[in-house]
């Protein structure tokens, strides 16, 4: 067998603070200060230091010393938490960005799906966008013409094919976008988390299509947070952690390894200063903690007891309209809920503007909520309609122990992520 992809000691370094975000909205004073500082910046730039030189020479390795081969016709899964370097790896393989060191040898045309619908223009019709998007993905015009009907069939939007896509529902838009991408026929297909969107029905169809691609003997690299998709589509998987390859194994083994060790298993996620992008300023996450009813930090909570979630953070400047919140999802990536600390109107009024300082936003999930299993907690800090300061969709994961929960007398798994204690009444009516 020949290697379709050979990655050798690959590394990618990013400068942090390079993309400095200057103004927050409505901060007139800062604008004035910025104007006053202009001569200083100009001098720095002319002296060859640039914007990055003085403010932050700090850099992080998004990938470091990665080596692996993928044989022709194999499907390799890539798992790892956010920031582990998965997307950077795919970007290098699809030549969107250059590595800092190391080499990759790729045999064959690479089709990359880092996003569906890249280059779609809202004013153009579905038909026009198929051609445009196809060309962007590297298809020849004749190739697109040949597959046009197939693409339209797959997308299920044939009725609206001559309507501008801005009139499409988001589901239709996505179906069309994926349909184009799915008909790309490169020797090597690189797929990022594009399936995380769309309804369950469509996701199933996409997974099916990807399975077909693999059947045809193409080499596929597949990144997903959806472990069941990884298990279904890939034979082998690699696990990335903080830019390093820590495991390569048959998929089942790799997924087990990832679930049990790759994630923070302590019940606490602490953000080191170098893990926070400069663009988050003035918001600075410090730690996310999971506590049981006695206040102890735990990584396994009991379903029959209340659980406290707290997020500690610092504001380096006052923020208006800030909301700090959580996403709870299953390990398969299905959301269970999203909640913000200022969801309550009174609370929102009281904390309309938060002064600079250190804060904790804390909430309690009542007893009898979770079903047994493993869950993932994401965080988000944003001002609605203004800016998202910080987000980590996969900040912490934890286990739920269901002993004592309703229905435990039957040793069977229960469907669904919640396991409420419902107030059942049984009446005999005749």
């Amino acid at each position, binding site marked *: 067998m020949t290697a379709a992809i050979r990655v050798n000691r690959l590394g990618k370094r*990013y400068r942090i603070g*390079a*993309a400095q975000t200057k103004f927050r909205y409505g901060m007139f004073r800062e604008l004035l200060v910025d104007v006053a500082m202009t001569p200083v910046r100009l001098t720095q730039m002319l002296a060859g230091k640039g*914007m990055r030189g003085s403010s932050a020479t700090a850099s992080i390795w998004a990938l470091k010393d990665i080596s692996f081969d993928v044989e022709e016709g194999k499907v390799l899964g890539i798992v790892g938490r956010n920031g582990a370097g998965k997307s950077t790896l795919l*970007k*290098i*393989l*699809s*030549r*969107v*960005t*250059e*590595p*800092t*060191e*190391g*080499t*990759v*040898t*790729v*045999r*064959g*045309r*690479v089709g*990359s799906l*880092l*996003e569906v619908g*890249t*280059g779609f*223009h809202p*004013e*153009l019709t579905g038909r*026009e966008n198929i*051609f*445009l998007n196809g*060309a*962007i*993905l*590297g298809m*020849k*015009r004749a190739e697109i013409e040949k597959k046009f009907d197939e693409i339209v069939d797959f997308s299920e939007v044939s009725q609206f094919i001559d309507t501008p896509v801005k009139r499409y529902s988001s589901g239709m838009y996505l179906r069309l976008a994926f349909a184009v991408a799915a008909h790309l*026929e490169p*020797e090597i297909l690189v797929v990022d988390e594009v399936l995380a969107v769309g309804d369950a029905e469509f996701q199933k169809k996409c997974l099916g299509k990807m399975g077909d691609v693999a059947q045809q003997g193409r080499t596929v690299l597949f990144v997903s947070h959806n472990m069941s998709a990884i298990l279904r589509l890939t034979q082998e998987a690699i696990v990335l952690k903080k830019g390093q390859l820590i495991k390569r194994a048959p998929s089942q083994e790799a997924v087990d390894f990832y679930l049990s060790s790759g994630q923070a298993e302590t019940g606490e996620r602490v953000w080191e200063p170098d893990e926070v992008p400069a663009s988050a300023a003035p918001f600075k996450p410090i730690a996310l903690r999971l506590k049981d009813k006695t206040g102890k930090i735990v990584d396994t909570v009991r379903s029959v007891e209340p659980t406290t979630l707290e997020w500690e953070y610092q504001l380096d400047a006052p923020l208006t309209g800030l909301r700090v919140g959580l996403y709870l999802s299953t390990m398969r990536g299905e959301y269970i809920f999203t909640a913000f600390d200022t969801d309550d109107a009174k609370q929102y009024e009281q904390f309309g503007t938060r002064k600079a300082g250190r804060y904790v936003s804390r909430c309690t999930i009542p007893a009898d909520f979770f079903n047994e299993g493993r869950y993932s907690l994401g965080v988000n800090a944003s001002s609605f309609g203004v800016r998202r300061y910080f987000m980590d969709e996969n900040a912490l994961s934890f286990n739920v122990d269901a002993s004592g929960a309703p229905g435990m007398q039957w040793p069977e798994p229960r469907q669904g992520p919640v396991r409420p204690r419902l107030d059942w009444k049984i009446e005999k009516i005749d």
Partner: protein
Amino acid sequence: MAKSIELVRQPETIFIKPSTGLAALNLRDLWTYRELIYFMIWRDIKVRYKQTMLGAAWAIIQPVLTMLVFTFIFGKVAKLPTDGIPYPIFSYTALLPWGLFTTALNTASRSLTSNQNMVTKTYFPRLVLPLASVLGGLVDFVIAFAILIVLMIYYKVTPTAAIWTLPLFLLLTVITALGVALWLSAINVQYRDVNYVLPFLTQFWLFITPVAYSAKLVSEKWSIVYSINPMAGVVNGFRWALLGTDTGPNLNMIVSICVALLFLISGLFYFRSMEKTFADTI
């Protein structure tokens, strides 16, 4: 059938490694992606006048309105000399290449930032974007050219035998616009200051180009300095070829051409050397 061909075809091998030193121009890659250039031009044209009431008529209205304003201010009020040519046609002949130049410069300089998600999500030679923007401007030029023909009939002006040189002047316009836009679009990726520089740049450039006035107003001893601006050569050439003014290309033209080529070649190399950072800094 197609399948078996595909299996037989030996897949090409690509090496991905950090680039060092001066990047090769790699124009062959651009050729492979020629269809994408076509599609980008096609998209820009399709989209440009969408959801406007007057549509493609804007390609005519803009230069015609400018011509009317110029005719009133410079022709009637300031009474600038025009070598005996009616002022409307005198200015319109210059506004055609000038309009192409500014449109091309503006859209191409913003082409990378306005197609941000293409740059961060897919691979293609980034040169496609500014190139397609510049070439897309030619369509408006052709539409606006129709009005010139009308004006020439109305003022009974017959084009000179030198009309065949027009495509060459057009080429010089495209080269100049592309060369400058390559610099500006690459800088714009990191420093959005370019967006604020552009209006000043085009305004200033308009003043040093004989669009509203005749190049004869510039004294002889400055003419060589003046011709550093390739657009001056273009405008003079347009008037010479179409209206028969005696502003035809002379030795100064060589300076114009050299400057334009300098912009283009330096722009190409600068663009290529910055290209690898686009996806990370945009």
